[in-house]
């Protein structure tokens, strides 16, 4: 995969190779992972994104050591760790339900990992204070964890996992139990903490917006496989598969003929007959292909003559910052255009009016499937 990352791409933190995991045997067996290979870099905020049941948790648990691979390897900093029990891996987990120890105070919870590592009392106390300060929970050090709100428990769980300074922090949908406002807050906090500590974060979510806003790189998973890895912008602007394009954001799908291939670009002849430039995935071949165009990468025009596509406005939905125009193309397909509202715009198009559609630069992406 070609990808740029804000991380130092020379040093790999976690590497998994051809990971396969089958639960159960015989007819009842489930293949949770079907050959996953990925390298996650030091100091990277890496997100696993995918629908329910695609194997995100299984992959994470395999890195943590709670599950053992049916086949394949897990490497940490170049060393094989697949055979090590969880307590011998310098990797910590933030559990979805927090899993705070109910019989311990906040401070004892956070100090637990350090205590188990055999650190001395004064160092534990210092580190607990420092971590509590980082999650802004200093005044709760002697509270029982049952006396905390959901958001506070979340912070303690985070602090507990960060206190032993692991090489990698695994987070399995840590924000899914929080309400929207708290969630947005914690997203920013998480980002800040990753920045401050410099620890590699592997974050699981099935919320695409969360994945796009927080990550350095995103891996989109489906049915036990990683379908595409890349920076959020790359995943969003240049999805290479129908599933990825569909799963992330809103998309228009069109049929076209690919020709004049030149490296990673080519020309697409659309059903309307007009030719537009397009970005190509690896190993694209000339012929009939599906292309995607994001709604905000298209423009409407009142003169259908020199437009790439023409159609009729069916519905107009006003969203405040922008407006969605639902069109019916001449081919009968539907197409959505999203345009940002200007101070004095919005009266150019009415439902029923004939319009032309033009594409911004680089708007057309060819899919593999």
């Amino acid at each position, binding site marked *: 995969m070609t990808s740029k990352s804000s991380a130092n791409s020379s040093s790999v933190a976690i590497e998994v190779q051809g990971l396969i995991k089958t639960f159960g045997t015989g007819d009842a067996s489930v293949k949770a992972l079907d050959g996953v290979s990925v390298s996650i870099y030091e100091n990277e905020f890496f997100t696993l994104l995918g629908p329910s049941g695609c194997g995100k948790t299984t992959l994470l648990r395999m890195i943590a050591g709670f599950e053992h691979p049916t086949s394949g390897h897990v490497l940490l900093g170049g060393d094989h760790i697949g055979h090590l029990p969880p307590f011998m891996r310098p990797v910590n987990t933030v559990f979805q339900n927090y899993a705070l120890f109910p019989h311990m105070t906040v401070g004892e919870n956070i100090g637990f990992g350090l205590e*188990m590592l055999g650190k001395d009392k004064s160092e534990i106390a210092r580190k607990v204070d420092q971590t509590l300060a980082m999650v802004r929970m200093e005044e709760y050090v002697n509270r029982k964890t049952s006396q905390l709100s959901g958001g506070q428990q979340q912070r303690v769980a985070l602090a507990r996992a960060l206190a032993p300074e692991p090489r990698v922090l695994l987070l399995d949908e840590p924000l899914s139990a929080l309400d929207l406002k708290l969630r947005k807050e914690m997203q920013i906090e998480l980002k800040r903490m990753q920045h401050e500590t410099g620890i590699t974060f592997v974050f699981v979510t099935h919320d695409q917006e969360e994945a796009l806003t927080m990550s350095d790189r995103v891996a989109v998973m489906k049915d036990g496989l990683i379908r595409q890895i890349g920076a959020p912008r790359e995943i969003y602007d240049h999805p290479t598969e129908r599933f990825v394009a569909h799963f992330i954001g809103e998309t228009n799908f069109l049929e076209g003929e690919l020709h004049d291939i030149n490296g990673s670009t080519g020309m697409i002849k659309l059903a309307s007959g007009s030719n537009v430039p397009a970005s190509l995935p690896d190993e694209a071949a000339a012929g009939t292909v599906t292309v995607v165009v994001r709604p905000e990468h298209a423009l409407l025009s009142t003169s259908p003559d020199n437009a790439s596509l023409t159609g009729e406005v069916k519905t107009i939905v006003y969203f405040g910052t922008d407006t969605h125009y639902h069109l019916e193309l001449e081919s009968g397909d539907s197409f959505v255009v999203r345009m940002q509202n200007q101070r004095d715009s919005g009266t150019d198009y009415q439902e029923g009016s004939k319009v032309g559609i033009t594409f911004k630069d680089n708007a057309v992406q060819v899919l593999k499937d």
Partner: protein
Amino acid sequence: MSAETTLAHAHGAPLTGAEAEAATVKREVRNRWFLLSPAMLIICGIGIMPLAIIIGYSFMEQGNYAGVKWEFTLESWMNLITERDIFDDTLGWNHAHISIMLRSIGLALMTMVTTLIMGFPTAYFITTRPEGQRNFWLFLIALPFFSNLLVRTFSMMLMLRDDGYINNVLLFLGVIDEPMILIYTNTAVAIGLVFTYLPLMVMPLYASMEKLNFNLVEAGYDLYASRFQVLKRVILPSVKPGIIAGCILVFIPAIGAYVTAKILGGGKNLMIGNLIANQFGTSRDWPLGSAISLFMMIVVMIALIVYVRNSLAEQD
């Protein structure tokens, strides 16, 4: 309030607001007692009354053939652990009673500890079975309860006898040359008690373990705790209520065990239960029997209070 009251009077109402309120409260109190009366009757009838009789008896003189004479004396309470010399009337320790009491407490504690050690892995095993299988294992654990205690104890006797199964098997395997003497020993009583009360330990342990969130165990492993440390720091504190309940459920009946000691201990290895039974039987000393019963109750109560106090103090 005052406006209401004057209004009520003006209309010739017989009650002021406060009076009406008081009447309602009175009626509610009466209703509550009325509704509680069946429970009160039962508690008095089968709880407090017999206890009162026992307390009364323990302060009376021994009757000539059985029963009691209605005269106050502290003799039975003295006779608990002391006795008068038959010849010179001096007061000395009653070594027989003391050894029986110590044996009872010792055997009960041992039973408690052994059932805990055996019951803990058993309960853990059941908890970690798939949900559909757990009831089956629990059923197996509870199975002995479907048979009579006497029958179970006699079957233990068949196993422990000089020519019983245990000796026969060990002889056959060549582990021993002569039959071991198992029956009518403290060991036999201990084995019998453990066998009898193990289910009472497993059940509450299972109940609390089933509620244990296994994510906590994983969190423990994740934070560098070894298996032993996870057991000590994560699992044990979480299942502590079950351990306490199991210990109480085993200790109390074990210290008062009667059938087991009688059958497997022969005449030699008596426990408090047998001592009490003797007073109401062959010894015909009802006051002493009552005093011993009460003494045992007090010991158990003190043990319980200390235990609960300690565990409550630890929780805070």
